[in-house]
């Protein structure tokens, strides 16, 4: 049995990964240092950490858009070389194509991958229905609200059937009410797709509400400070669980870890300024 099919092989492994960047004036600095993380098949992992600590860098290494300076990144047991077709990515910024209407945006993935037009549009139509935008197929992104655009982004990503789903603060630009609705939407799509998820956020409640495991990262250079298992049973009702004692207890414990790092990172910024 090859590693590709063997379910005991983790979906994502980062083994002692470091990543250096060169600043414009030629100095090198480290954003990730000896970073190790394992995501099992079908597991939902959230990364929280102070602003600018290197959370997005981690995701770039998994997509293959970036390379580690040392260490190894493996996807389904294989070292990452270039962009893996099994990976889906939901961006923080609006990354929809503004000159394409909703259905053309959602059909983009299958069309890029060479599936026949009719098939691609049929799948797109289906996914748009699943995210509740059936009436908006011919609308352009600028005609939709922020929450609706995120739904399009989810459909655009899920249509490719990603086995690995990377999300970089995808809902940070939404208002609180819309965000909760999107969390529930995401959990539902995820429970069907069985993808392994890495969800980057700076919102601790979001992390606890969604994830099986929360990784707390240190201030730059980022490394893993603590891993917390979230044993809240599924299916979860996001709008309700945040008031449960166990949820509050978890947030308090994790926040203790996180606070020190946030403090440190803001001290760094003050001394740098």
């Amino acid at each position, binding site marked *: 049995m090859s590693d590709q099919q063997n379910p005991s092989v983790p979906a994502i492994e980062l083994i002692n990964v470091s990543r250096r960047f060169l600043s414009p004036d030629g100095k090198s600095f480290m954003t990730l240092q000896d970073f190790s993380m394992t995501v099992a098949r079908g597991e939902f992992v959230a990364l929280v950490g102070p602003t600018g600590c290197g959370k997005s860098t981690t995701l770039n290494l998994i997509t293959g858009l970036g390379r580690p300076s040392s260490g190894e990144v493996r996807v389904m047991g294989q070292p990452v070389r270039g962009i893996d077709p099994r990976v889906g990515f939901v961006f923080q910024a609006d990354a929809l194509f503004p000159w394409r209407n909703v259905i053309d945006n959602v059909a983009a993935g299958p069309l890029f991958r060479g599936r026949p037009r009719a098939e691609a549009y049929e799948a797109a139509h289906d996914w748009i229905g699943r995210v509740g935008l059936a009436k908006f197929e011919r609308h352009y992104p600028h005609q939709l609200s922020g929450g609706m655009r995120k739904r399009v982004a989810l459909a655009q*990503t899920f249509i*490719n059937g990603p086995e690995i789903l990377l999300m970089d603060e995808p809902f940070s630009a939404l208002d609180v009410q819309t965000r909760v609705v999107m969390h529930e939407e995401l959990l539902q799509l995820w429970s069907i797709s069985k993808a392994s998820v890495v969800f980057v956020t700076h919102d601790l409640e979001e992390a606890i509400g969604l994830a099986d495991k929360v990784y707390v990262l240190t201030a730059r250079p980022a490394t893993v400070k603590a891993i917390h298992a979230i044993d809240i049973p599924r299916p979860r009702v996001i709008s309700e669980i945040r008031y449960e004692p166990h949820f509050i207890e978890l947030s308090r414990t994790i926040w203790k870890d996180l606070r020190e790092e946030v403090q440190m990172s803001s001290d760094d910024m003050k001394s740098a300024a």
Partner: protein
Amino acid sequence: MTDIAIQSGGAILYAPGTSDVEIEAAARAAALQRKRTVIFWRCFILAVMLGAWEVTARTGIIDAFFYSYPSAIAERLYELVLEGTDEAPLWYHLWITMEEALIGFFFGSVFGIVFGVALGRNRMASDVLSVYIKVLNAIPRVVLAPIFILLFGFGLWSKVALSFIMVFFVVFSNAFQGVLEADRAMIANAQILGASPWQVTRSVIIPSAMSWIFASLHISFGFAIVGAIVGEFIGARYGIGFIIQTARGVHDTAEMYASIVIIVVVVLTAEYLMTLLEQRLARWRPAPVGDGHE
């Protein structure tokens, strides 16, 4: 309107109890009124300018030999349209100039877009070639006119070459800049969705550079006409530039101004058509927010 609308520091306050229908009617009336005022002042300024020109030229305050005057120009324009010149009817001259400008414009924009996008997508090539492009760009285009006449003769192709070179650099540098401005997240999104480099270029880079490219096309059609006319000044048998040059030879200033009017009409028409085309292609863009300004 004084019964329902109370003017207060520029903003309109409506009396309590005013219905939506009344408010909408008042807003429509105000918009129409504003539009009428704008048109009135436009016509007024035109009338004053032309009137002043006519009067000062006829009374000898300015020299009518150099400046001519509107009624003489209108008359000459009328004759040109009906009878043309000794060589050919006006339409033939206009067609020649347009042919030169359009061919130059077409190839200039196509090459400009292709090279701009290609260099924008290829860092190494753009680093290597940028110095040459700067040097070529520093050459005032008009000085090439005599060289092109020598190279391509007095016919069509010397003017096409001049139009081409006028258009190319403008379109090229805008297309290049447009490619560099393309959104990073959008490119990454396309790549992860499965786009090959060519698919990224076609479905992300070119559409997002399009507004830059269109901005340059607007300006460069005027440049294409400049190229054609300057070429005709240096040596031609037909064309609007040729008419102006001949009129200068016989001190017919009215005819020179009449030719300028013809060119202005042509450029404005082309501009209008281009705006229509751009609006068709850019249906995806948010409509500008209407606040009563036209």
